[in-house]
């Protein structure tokens, strides 16, 4: 039973690593600021979410896993806000340039 849980946790972490890889490739390869932001927000939410789910599966039902879920909730709350504010700043700069 324990090895099954470890395998499941490692699978979730590998999925999160895959999404981080996809986001980094998008950050390096895509041509524009807004398209780069599109790739990186995907990597923030899904990659961090899957890795934290793997951590929670590994820890079981303890106070530390509650803290990990708190960190995940904080990341999910703040990253879309930050992306929204960056996009607003970019659009405002483009309007000033025109």
């Amino acid at each position, binding site marked *: 039973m324990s090895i099954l849980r470890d395998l499941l946790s490692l699978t979730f972490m590998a999925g999160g690593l895959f999404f981080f*890889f996809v986001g980094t490739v998008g950050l390096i390869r895509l041509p524009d600021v807004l398209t780069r932001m599109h790739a990186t927000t995907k990597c923030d939410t899904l990659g*961090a979410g899957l890795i934290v789910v793997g951590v929670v599966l590994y820890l079981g039902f303890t106070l530390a896993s509650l803290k990990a879920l708190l960190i995940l909730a904080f990341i999910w709350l703040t990253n879309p*806000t930050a992306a929204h504010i960056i996009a607003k700043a970019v659009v405002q700069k483009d309007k000033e340039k025109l």
Partner: protein
Amino acid sequence: MLEMGIWLILIALAILSFASLYRSIKGPSVADRIIAINVISTKVTVMILLISIVLNQTGYMDVALIYALVGFITTLSVSKYLAKGKLYE
């Protein structure tokens, strides 16, 4: 076996952080640099979480929480400065 896998994931995340640092150095505009630093901050938060479970030190999770907070405030203030040209009214 699981510890070995977590170490491999940590090494891969460190390599991906350095790959994002390329965009933050070379990026043509300021917004590219802000996006790259935001992504690196998320990656370092996740890396601190993984280090805390692989070293069996659950107190490090508070460090990850504070790191996420500081990264969010950094992104917020730099992009506000980019939009308005000043931080305070």
